[in-house]
């Protein structure tokens, strides 16, 4: 529980990064994102996801188009924009640097 709390702000910051990664792989809709995240430490809910997605869209990192679904109303399928791809590449590099730093400093048990 303690570790969980300690890293909650890190998870908060990383959620955006993870979303960009998920969306970069394929066009996805919200229920899929939630499902992919649900099994991880980054499990989240619609109440968090929708505002975050709209923020990313406002930053022009992603966009969506409507697509008919077999069951129910049309859904928003999200995809990365060119700007989103550049940013994701940057974040990937940054994340690698962070990982290297963590491993270089001290030894893990």
């Amino acid at each position: 529980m303690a570790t969980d709390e300690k890293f909650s702000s890190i998870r908060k910051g990383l959620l955006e990064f993870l979303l960009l990664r998920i969306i970069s792989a394929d066009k996805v809709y919200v229920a899929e994102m939630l499902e992919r995240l649900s099994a991880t430490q980054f499990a989240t809910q619609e109440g968090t996801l929708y505002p975050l997605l709209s923020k990313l869209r406002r930053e022009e990192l992603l966009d969506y188009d409507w697509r008919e679904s077999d069951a129910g109303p049309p859904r928003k399928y999200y995809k990365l924009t060119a700007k989103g791809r550049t940013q994701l590449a940057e974040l990937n590099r940054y994340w690698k640097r962070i990982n290297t730093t963590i491993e270089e400093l001290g030894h893990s048990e």
Partner: protein
Amino acid sequence: MNTVITVNLNGNAYQLDEQGFESLRAYLDSADERLAGNPDKAEILSDIEQAIADKCRRYLNPHKSVVAAADLDRILAEMGPVESETGGSAANSERQRMAADNSQSRKDAPRRLYQVREGSMISGVCNGLAAYFNVDVTIVRIVFVALTILTGGVWILAYILMMFIIPDATTSEERAAAHGEPFNAQQLVDGAKERYAEFRQQSARWHEGWRRRRQLRREKRAAAAERAFWRGERAHEDVGYATRVLAGFMVPVFTLIGAALFVVVIIAMVSLFRTGGIFDWALPNEIPVWGAIVILAIVYQAVHMPLRAASRASYEASVGQRHGWLAAADGLLWLGFAALFFWLAYLFIPEVRSLFESVPFEWRHPLDAWHAF
């Protein structure tokens, strides 16, 4: 038999029972509140509604056309509270998230020190402190009584000062701020109901006899307000907390200045009577003593009036109306200050001392003079 309410969720019609409808509305209201200022608010809300609609569908089948309250609660728990994007998080468990959320908004709401009149014994100082430090008011009262006994009564002066300095919580927001509670519509309604019941009880019990007199006093005051041009506007409604603290602080300061002024004038008057001058300064020959006294009285009035007006304005900015307790306390404070200044003047200004000693014995000791008869 239960009432069914049909709702339109982003273009999808669903039937909910009454309880479910209430919780849905509370959820969407809070979402609306948290997204305030978000440029994409409308879009996010319709996404949310759509998501809820999709989930509702799961709970319906050809034999069940109404989404029950329990179903809806499950749906809303699944949705999770809508977070503004700055607070966007990926907390794991619902409970943890809710707890964090609560403490967050609790922290965000500024807690301020107010006098809380509801359920107070005197003025609400203890009540306000109890709310501020989140302890039982009885404990605060016991501490105050203990302090009063330990300090030989001096603590009462501290209480009186606090009565002036700490603003009254007069609006619902202020009352909420006194407890440090986030303020929202539901609390407003609950609080209003509670206060109304309390108010009715109280007014029945206490205010019956007072009402007529107070009404009379209020009318008189209103008439006086029209006449008194120096009183300035009643700015109480829209002054901020800081202004009110300052105003509350200024009331005793004005009282102090007023008392000091009074003492100076009285000493000057006595000096005029006894020596025909004010201490070393002798009256010019052309002014008789009575003339000097009249001039002194006029000067005193001229200085005293704006001071009193300023004091009254501070009073109104701080506590609104001048109610009995505070007015009485103000008078006591004035008397205390005046006595203190007389005593200080007697101790530290030799002229005053000699003046006092030059006063005939019978003046100084009226009781002895009385016995001598």
